[in-house]
Each structure stands twice: as structure tokens, then as C-alpha cells.
């Protein structure tokens, strides 16, 4: 069994992957609930506002995946960058300040792995993952220390982040999406994509590879940070962090959406809606008494299908 590169890659396989994922989810939900009625209810019941909220957050984070993976860079630390973004939002007073400081803080945070990659060629997949773990510790430090809410005596929680309406958050997503689409039409965006073919190609095109590595990873971090900020700011209530609830899992969901969307900005955002629906289904299952980790499992299968779609798109399988 081996993989052979296709001469003419076929985008049809992304549709196959999507249907495969859908079938897997329906099957899992049916197996878990055991009866058709509960399964149908879990798959169809949702609150539009809630779905939209998850969609916007996942959509923004998925763009973080797109700009990084399209440049051939493996930022898998969106979760950590989102946490840093959320912390920045908590320490801000207005929504605008929160978004701006989240972008700056997460962009700065990702510069550590980006610089290591650009200067010393250290694998960014390892370092973004490790800095993600570090982000959890950093967040816990802030929860217990500088950002602890003194008013809530007896409870270790942070101050509340400013609220942002869903409409503004959605507008921000559209803006960021338009930014990426337009960026890819410019010379800078083209050179960023050239990076996926190797640093030599960027150099050949007249660019400096290290600058483009910093730019692509930095932008990816900025998006993930904004995603993290939006996640905490769009909550109706409880816009704070606790020691137990530092990580939300939206980083992983964003990565899945990016792959499932064929690493195209529009595709990724479209796939984010699907991932958001999966998340809502998972919440429904939790309400029906199933473990909370089902959400991760469902999104995990979607991610596997997304990668399978990418593989089928580029390669064909030969059984000998």
C-alpha cells in the first residue's frame, strides 16, 4: 500500500471528507444515545445565538490555522495563543482595547517559537505546542495573582473581561476573513504562500525567508489571540477565568476547521460553522448525560476527516 501524488488534485475529496465526517458523527451519536429519538434531538436542537458564538470564535481561530499552514508552518499552539489573548482581554477595560491587546499579546507570545524557527531553524510544531503548555501555567499564575478579582472573596477567579456583542464579534470575523482573502492577492501574501515550497523559493522570489516566517506565524498568533479574546468576551455571563477553566479547547477546533476547509480562508470559515454545530451537538449529548469529553472526540473525528480529505486531495492510494 502506498500513496502516489495525483497529477490533477481533485477538490471533490474535501466534499467526500465532509460527508464522511457527517456520517461518522451521526453514527457516533446514535451509538452513544442508543435510541433514534434522543439521537435526532441531539443532532437538531440548538440555540442560534449559542451556535453563532461558537462559530465566530472557531472561525477566527481557523484563520490562524490557514495563514500558518498555507505557509508550510506548523503552528499547533492556537490553544495557548488563545489563552494569552483571553488574559489580555480580561486585563482590558473596553472591547476595542481588549481585541487590540489580545492581538498584541498573542502575536508577541508566538514570536518566541517564530524567532526560534526563523533564526535557528527549530521546529515550530514542537515549540508552539510547548509554549501552549506554558500558556496554561502563565494563565494560572495570573488567575491567582495579578488578575485575581478581590471582590469575589473565597473564590479564585479573575476579573471579568469586557462584553462584546455577537454582532460586533461577527463583523470582526468578516473583517479578518476579508483581510486574509485580500492579503493572498498581494505580493506579500503570495510570498507567504511560497514559503510552503521552501525557504529557497522565497529567497529566489526576492524575499527574506526569516521575515516571512515571523510574519506568517505572528499573524497566526494574532488571529488565535483575537479568537481567545472573543471567546471570553462573547459569553453572556462568567466572563472570567478560573484555575480549572483556563483552556477552552477552541484552539483545537480552529485547527480542525482549517484542515476541513481545505486551508482556504473561505473554506475554513465555512467548516467552522460545521465544527460549531458539532460542538453544540456535543453539548446536547452532555445534557443527555454523556461525558463532557465527547465534544473533543467529535471534533477529533472531524479533524481526522479533514486531514484525510487533504491526503485524498493530493494523493491516490495504491494497494500494492
Amino acid at each position, binding site marked *: 500500500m502506498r500513496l502516489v501524488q495525483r497529477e490533477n488534485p481533485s477538490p471533490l475529496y474535501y466534499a467526500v471528507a465532509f460527508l464522511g465526517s457527517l456520517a461518522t458523527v451521526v453514527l457516533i451519536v446514535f451509538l452513544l444515545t442508543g435510541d433514534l429519538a434522543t439521537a435526532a434531538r441531539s443532532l437538531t436542537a440548538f440555540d442560534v445565538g449559542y451556535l453563532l458564538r461558537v462559530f465566530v470564535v472557531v472561525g477566527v481561530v481557523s484563520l490562524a490555522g490557514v495563514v500558518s499552514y498555507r505557509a508550510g508552518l506548523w503552528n499547533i499552539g492556537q490553544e495557548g495563543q488563545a489563552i494569552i489573548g483571553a488574559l489580555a482581554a480580561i486585563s482590558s477595560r473596553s472591547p476595542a482595547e481588549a481585541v487590540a491587546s489580545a492581538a498584541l499579546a498573542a502575536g508577541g507570545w508566538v514570536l518566541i517559537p517564530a524567532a526560534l524557527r526563523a533564526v535557528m531553524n527549530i521546529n515550530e510544531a514542537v515549540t508552539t505546542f510547548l509554549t501552549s503548555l506554558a500558556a496554561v501555567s502563565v494563565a494560572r499564575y495570573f488567575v491567582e495573582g495579578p488578575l485575581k478579582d478581590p471582590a469575589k472573596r473565597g473564590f479564585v477567579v479573575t476579573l471579568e473581561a469586557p462584553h462584546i456583542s455577537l454582532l460586533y464579534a461577527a463583523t470582526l470575523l468578516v473583517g479578518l476573513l476579508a483581510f486574509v482573502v485580500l492579503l493572498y492577492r498581494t505580493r506579500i501574501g503570495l510570498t507567504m504562500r*511560497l514559503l*510552503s515550497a521552501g525557504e529557497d523559493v522565497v529567497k*529566489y522570489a*526576492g524575499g527574506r525567508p526569516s521575515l516571512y516566517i515571523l510574519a506568517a506565524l505572528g499573524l497566526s498568533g494574532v488571529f488565535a489571540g483575537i479568537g481567545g479574546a472573543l471567546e471570553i468576551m462573547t459569553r453572556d455571563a462568567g466572563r472570567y477565568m478560573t484555575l480549572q477553566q483556563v483552556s477552552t479547547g477552541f484552539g483545537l477546533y480552529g485547527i480542525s476547521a482549517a484542515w476541513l476547509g481545505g486551508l482556504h480562508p473561505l473554506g475554513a470559515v465555512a467548516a467552522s460553522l460545521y465544527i460549531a454545530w458539532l460542538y453544540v451537538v456535543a453539548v446536547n449529548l452532555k445534557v443527555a448525560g454523556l461525558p463532557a469529553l465527547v465534544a473533543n472526540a467529535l471534533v477529533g473525528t472531524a479533524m481526522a476527516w479533514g486531514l484525510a480529505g487533504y491526503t485524498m486531495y493530493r494523493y491516490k492510494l495504491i494497494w500494492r
Partner: protein
Amino acid sequence: MDGVDFEVDKGEVHGLLGENGAGKSTLIALLYGVYTPDGGEILLNGRRVVIKSPKHAASLGISLISQHFALVDTFTVKENLRLAGVDVKTAVKIGEEIGIEIPLEKYVWELTVGEKQRVEIVKALARNSEILLMDEPTALLGPREVKALLSVVRRLADMGKAVVFVTHKIREAVEVSDRITVLRRGRRVGVYERPFDEEVLLEAMFQGVVQRRASRGSSIGGVIYRAENLYGERVKRVNIELRRGELVVVLGVAGNGQEELMALLSGFRRPKSGKVFIDGEDVTGKPFHEFLRRGVAYLPEDRSRALAKELSVLDNFKIRCAKGCMEKLAEAKKILDIDFPSPHIKAAALSGGNQQKVLLARELWLREPYILVASYPTRGLDVDTTEKFYTLVRSVVKGGAVVSLEDVEEAVERADRIYVISRGEIVASFTPPFDVDEIAEAMTT
């Protein structure tokens, strides 16, 4: 390959001699089952065989020792032998018989090219190969390793193996072979037996080649580009001059440092020492975009350095195109006869020749560079496209061009000046009228 007869006996070293492009490698590929012949037949011990694949060839006792070693760098020699299904003790014993010591515990990445080659030879013998095809086995070796290899080859013949020894170096062929077959342009010129006459062999390899074009760069001007005492990883003491209107060829057998030299000359890589001047101005060590700005175009041997294969043809074109790219690409497509169904198709989907044409369109036709530095630009191109390339160079390159080639004929036909490169050094330079024998001699020493 056109109606070639070839035979090798047990216990014989049969030299297969010819210029680049003579068809030596094609013949080897046919004997090893890489290609299947359009006509003719192969007899093994008098029985007709159809060799379907390299695996099949191996099962028939045929081994290929090529310049591409089938060894895993991060494994030790011992592990590699086991991986190949070879009994280590047998391998060591065989090694002793032919005077090869096998560094079992060394990692493959620690080995010299010669050592790797010897491991491959032992591997082939341990698999009971009766016929050893050696494709340019000395191409990457230093003089001492060449000597060692030649004596191993002689011993293989003494053991009763049949060895086909492919080379373009007359001296080596003469030293090691019992018989020599000379190929030229896909045909057999003749089979020669001991004692060999080097003059006769040389004549057979290059006969009738000395047809030169009447006209070439007619108005050659002053020096516009100069490389002085250039050193790199493999490149040593290189001095090259390029005049306005000139096409300079760096000629040599592949793998003698040409690729690095071209990268150094184009500014894509920085030299370890030495200087590069464009129009008298020192540009040594400047970043590549500075060379681009001064009108240098670089066509690397490794196309993946210049083309992002996962991106569309149009995106690749846009690397050097700012406005009206769609129209310009369509025009280039027509002029250079590039075959692609849509500008949005990935560059990877194009054939090698068409990828090269896209590069030519972008770097030459579109940019009209001042200086062109190109590594084997015509390799893999058909006659027609090769002609187009040279026409393009003469018509759009405003200053001059430095091109590395491996084919004497092509060089003599096209160049205004020829530098011969060997082991990273320029060993000779020639100006018209060219003497092919003299140039070929310089290439093979």
C-alpha cells in the same frame, strides 16, 4: 537508442564508452528493467528473457551500482546490510575476497562516496549477482578512490562476474576494460579489443562533431561581470569573465561543482571567499534580491528552488510579474508553446519540460535580464525548445549569459567562450575556433 548490439562475457569487464547523451544510461536502464525496449531482445546465458522491472532484474542476478545509493543514512552499515536481506557474515567474507574492508559499525552518513559504493558492491555480490552494471561509478570519486575502485572491478572479473562499466572517461575505460563498446547518439560506433588506441576511441566518441555555427555573438563588448578567485563548499579558485553580448559556457561532467558555482555566480549563495563584480562594482555577499535588482536572472538545476509546485502556474508567474499577469502569461504560453490547460492548475501537474518553459517565460521573456546564470538550462528539453532557449537568450538577455552544460557538442555549437570545470575548479578555457578533442581531453583529465 537505435538498434544497439551489446554483449558481456563471464569474467569480463566490458567498458561502455560515450559522450553525454550517447545512450549509455538508456542502455543500462533497458538491461536493468527500468525501461522496456521497443524492439530487439535480451539473452541471458543464451536464453531469451524479458526483464520487467528492476526487481525482476535482481532476481535474474543483475545488479546496478549507480550514483544513487540505496542506503539509509541514519543506519549503520550493518543495519543497512540486514535491511537489504544480506547476511552480514557472508558480506564480510566476500569483502575480504575482493579486498574490501566493510566498516560495519559506521553510520552511512559517515562514509565517503567511495566507501558507500564499496558497500553497494558487496551487497550486490552477497545477493549472488552474476552481472554488475556500473553506471558512471567514478563520477563522484576522488583520484585515489578511483584507483581503488578500478582494482576492485578487476577482481570482480577474476571472480567470474560479468561487469559492464559505463564511463565517458577514455583513460578509465582503457585501464579497466577487456573490451570497449563506444556509443554515440544512441547508436553503436564499434567494439574495440585490447590493445586499445586512445586516439581511435576519441575519434569514435566525437566523430563529425566539429560542426560549428558560422555566426555567434557578433558584437562582443567589454567585461560586464567578473568573478574573482571564488571559493565555496566544492568550488575552488574560480575566475570567470563575461563580456557584453557573450554566451559563456561552463562545461563539465555533472557533479563537478557546477550547480554550486552557478548559485555563487548568481548571488543566490554567498561565496566563502573571492569577489563578484557587476559592471565593475563589487557585489560580493550582497543578498540575492540585490542581484535581482541589478538584472541577474538565475535558472537553478533544481527547479523546485525556482518554482512552487503546489501553487498555480499563474501564482508562479506572479513571482516576477506585477501587472496584467494573466494576459502576459497567455502571450508567453503562445510564444514558447507551453502546454497547460489553465493558468490555475498547479505547477506540479506540468511535465518537466513545460515547467522549464514556464521558468524561461518568467525569468527570460518577461524579465529581459541583464545577466543570465543558468544551470543545465536545456537538460530534458527537446531539440525545438532548446533552439528556442538559445534564440531567447540571444534576443532578450541584454548583457550576457553564463550557462553550465555537460554536452561538448552543445557547448561548441553555442558558446562564445568555454570554461571547463573539473572537481570544482576551472581547469581550462577555450575561445573559438574550438578544438573538440582538446576540450574533451580537458574534461576527462
